């Protein structure tokens, strides 16, 4: 900011004598003499203040098994070192391609990674997050099918389902529900749910109970009814699971938090959206394309902008402007560091450890799996006591055992498989979602099982609500 001396020089050049004159166009009745806030702090004091707040939080460690849409993966130090470079972090949207090739090229690389992972042909530069990407994809599918209704699987993360509901409420698109099979936890692919009004079928892979969905069956049913199918996938599983694009998905969305974004209490990360080339003009958000410059050099630029708000205004495919470029960069770098082998290996570690823990926990008295469908690295257990009580007791033993299902259901009307909308019902109170990643060491799994055994022995006799 300017010194008082500099201010005087500037005022003089402007030809006025006081700062107040600059604000003379503000009606006097509205003008204020400052803010009713504390005075500023020095950097030293600011640091002390903010660090004090950070110190009031508990930092999860290898004994934390929370997932439910946000996963703690190991992020190589190189990701942080690169993403924090000022030239990436302090650039704007790459509107001037000549001085934005860094950003443009890494977005182009991101788009390619997303296509490779999802098995689709085009991907955009990122959206706000997974849930909003899902809502955008639903709108896109409705535009493409010229229909008005959205059919959402009960296997969507309840918060994602809520975002779809909220977005749909604007234009008033009806949202219908597609239940899970109460036995397996897999979304039913019953044509009865697919009226001819349905333009978009939304499903999550793995679903919010951790169960791996049968995308091919759902895609077939959707297509038979003239609808498009949108799959929201955890991209971290795609080293092992088949690419949704190869199973019939028309649009694939998801969140790249699993690649290089710290959990950061849920954000920021980046959503992605991929589809077929035929649908590219309905894609929301930015796209980077390859071209050549005046001297024939290969280069990159924002393209197909006629879909976007700054050109098309009210007719744009979305209002999104700033997206989540830097988080997408983190994902691109993390994927470049993992490579295909690393990605697969990471998935397998998660898979193996999760199944191991699942087996051990289901062997404890009174514990049973909620559903029988195949799962990836997260699973839902029914405990002999309320999950929240169990979790509290486990945390006291240093293990954060998972997310009580009721936490996800707060403020929603999504319920348990087959049970319909029943956030407060007795069973859901007993359900715990347990996620396992490569940061949960084998020793941490053992600690979990040991602590759980002891705690359940105490909690279940008195508090057993099943």
């Amino acid at each position, binding site marked *: 900011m300017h010194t008082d001396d500099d201010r005087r020089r500037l005022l003089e050049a402007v*030809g*006025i004598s006081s700062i107040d004159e600059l604000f003379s*166009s503000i009606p006097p009745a509205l003008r*204020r003499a*400052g803010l*009713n*806030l504390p005075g*500023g*702090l020095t950097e030293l004091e*600011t640091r002390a203040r*903010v660090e004090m707040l*950070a110190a009031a939080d508990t930092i*999860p460690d290898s004994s934390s098994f929370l997932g439910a*849409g*946000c996963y*703690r993966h190991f992020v190589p130090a190189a990701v942080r070192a690169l993403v924090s*470079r000022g030239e*990436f972090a*302090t650039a704007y*949207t790459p*509107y*001037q391609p000549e*001085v*934005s*090739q860094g950003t443009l*090229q890494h977005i*182009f*690389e991101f*788009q390619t*990674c997303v*296509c*490779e992972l999802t098995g689709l042909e085009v991907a955009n530069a990122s959206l706000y*997050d*997974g849930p909003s990407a899902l809502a955008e994809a639903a709108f896109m599918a409705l535009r493409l099918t010229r229909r008005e209704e959205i059919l959402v699987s009960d296997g969507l993360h309840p918060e994602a389902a809520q*975002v779809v509901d*909220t977005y749909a*409420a604007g234009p008033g698109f009806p949202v219908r529900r597609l239940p899970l099979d109460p036995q397996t936890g897999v979304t039913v692919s019953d044509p009865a749910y697919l009226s001819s009004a349905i333009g978009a079928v939304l499903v999550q892979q793995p679903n919010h109970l951790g169960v*791996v969905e049968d995308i091919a069956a759902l895609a077939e049913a959707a297509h038979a009814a003239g609808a498009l199918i949108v799959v929201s996938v955890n991209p971290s599983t795609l*080293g092992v699971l088949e690419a949704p694009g190869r199973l019939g998905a028309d649009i694939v969305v998801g969140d790249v938090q699993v690649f290089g974004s710290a959990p*950061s209490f849920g*954000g*920021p990360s980046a959503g992605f959206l991929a589809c077929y080339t035929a649908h590219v003009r309905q894609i929301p958000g930015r796209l980077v394309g390859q*071209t050549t410059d*005046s001297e024939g050099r290969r280069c*990159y630029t924002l*393209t197909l902008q006629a879909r976007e708000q700054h*050109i098309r205004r*009210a007719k*744009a495919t979305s*209002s999104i402007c*700033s*997206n989540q470029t830097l988080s997408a960069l983190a994902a691109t*770098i993390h994927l*470049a560091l993992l*490579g295909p082998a690393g990605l697969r290996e990471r998935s397998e*570690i998660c898979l193996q450890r999760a199944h*191991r823990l699942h087996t051990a926990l289901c062997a404890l008295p009174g514990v049973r799996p909620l559903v029988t469908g*195949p799962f990836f690295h997260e699973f839902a257990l029914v405990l002999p006591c309320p999950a929240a009580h169990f979790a509290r007791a486990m945390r006291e033993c240093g293990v954060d055992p998972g997310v009580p299902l009721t936490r996800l259901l*707060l*403020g929603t009307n999504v319920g348990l498989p087959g049970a319909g909308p029943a956030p407060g019902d007795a069973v859901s109170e007993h359900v715990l979602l347990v996620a396992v990643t490569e940061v949960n060491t084998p020793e941490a799994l053992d600690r979990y099982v040991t602590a759980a055994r002891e705690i359940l022995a105490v909690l279940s006799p008195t508090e057993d609500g099943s």
Partner: protein
Amino acid sequence: MTIDRTEPLVFDKGLPGHRAVDLPAAGVPEMDVSELLPGTLLRTTPPRLPELAEPQVVRHYTRLSQLNHSVDTGFYPLGSCTMKYNPKINDEMAALPGFAELHPYQALSEVQGILRLMYETEQILLEITGLRRATLQPAAGAHGELTGVLMIKAYHRDHGGAGRDTVIIPDSAHGTNLASAAMAGYRVVEIPSSQRGLIDVEALRRNLSDRTAAVMMTNPNTLGLFEEDVLQISSLAHEAGALCYYDGANLNAIMGKVRPGDMGMDVVHLNLHKTFSTPHGGGGPGAGPVAVSETLSPYLPLPLIARSDGDGAFTLDYDRPLSIGRVKGFYGNVGVIVRAYTYLVRMGADGLTRAAEDAVLSANYLRARLRDLYPVPHEGPCMHEFVSSATTHLAQDVTARDIAKRLLDFGIHPPTIYFPLIVPEALMVEPTETEDLRALDSFIEAMQQIDREAREDPEILRTAPHTTVVGRPDEVEASRHPILRWRA
């Protein structure tokens, strides 16, 4: 001797079998993957991700980074974007494990620090905006707009306004305003600006009706002018039963000087990545908190951060039956919010006000020194930015784009061009308060030289830039035959 400074794609730099990340063994008795998952669900061909070791990845992205202009490398007077400097302490605070490592579903007792930070951020933003309650959930400005408009819609639904299907927006507005209103299912009516570059109050009056759900405005508007009639505008809207939406992208001009709430606004979004110094990241992540009046607070997204009366503990309030629901997973771009909070407490009351003053002063300085060469069609004083028109240079067959491209040769990022749409050959200049007199004067000198060149050697402008890694990418070709991904 020219040399090609472009960098190959990461995919073309790999070598089969190379990788950077080594992972530990599962460490548990392993089962065959096909026993754990049905064979039909298993991947058949692996994704063709890059195959490089860490040194090569680091080198690639370090080199790519050097191909960017950024606030950390040069002046960036991009109008409407508030490319102010992003203090390094902000990033360090966001990286503290006590914030960065937190899982969104940890027990509330374990996350009191971050909840307090978010709560205090809201309180500060409410004081700055003069409103009553806020959400930090939206991920960017346009996301905040959508959130705000959805709240307006829900409000009308509950107050007999279901028939209100129109949002009125001035033609100087940013594209997101119109797109957000449309996304929320509204019809958009654009009203023309007056000669003075302000909302034409008569035009507004003519368009207001019982079909009007809201008036959206930006103040100062995108011409950098304060909408002097704002009180009349908000009264007219309210009298017609409509609500007022305020696009807070230009808040940097008015902190401590005037508050949207006092202007009669019902809902405001802020761009933390503009006004509150969080880095733009090459296009995000930002954050677009929304603050509302009492009227709209029941409609805010779920959950809200609340403070218990009893023990003062911070909680998440989901018990809000009128809420529009959610617009994003979890609680917002928290990492961005930590940065903004750091900035807010560091600046304090005086710092924020002074930032607004210096931002406006610098804009007026540039405007005063450049207007002879680059006429400013609207009367001043401007606020934090101003819009010149390069139409006088059209005589030499030099466009605003040519001027912009030539600026790149001076190591300066050009102003926003061709926006707002109502100014032909627009050059929209926003210096921000973090640029010193030297930076401002270098920009003036560059613009003066360009004006001279336009008269003496216009070809140099039409073929600019001359010093960048690439020059004038063929955008027509790019959109005619889109290549949107690498192929082997």
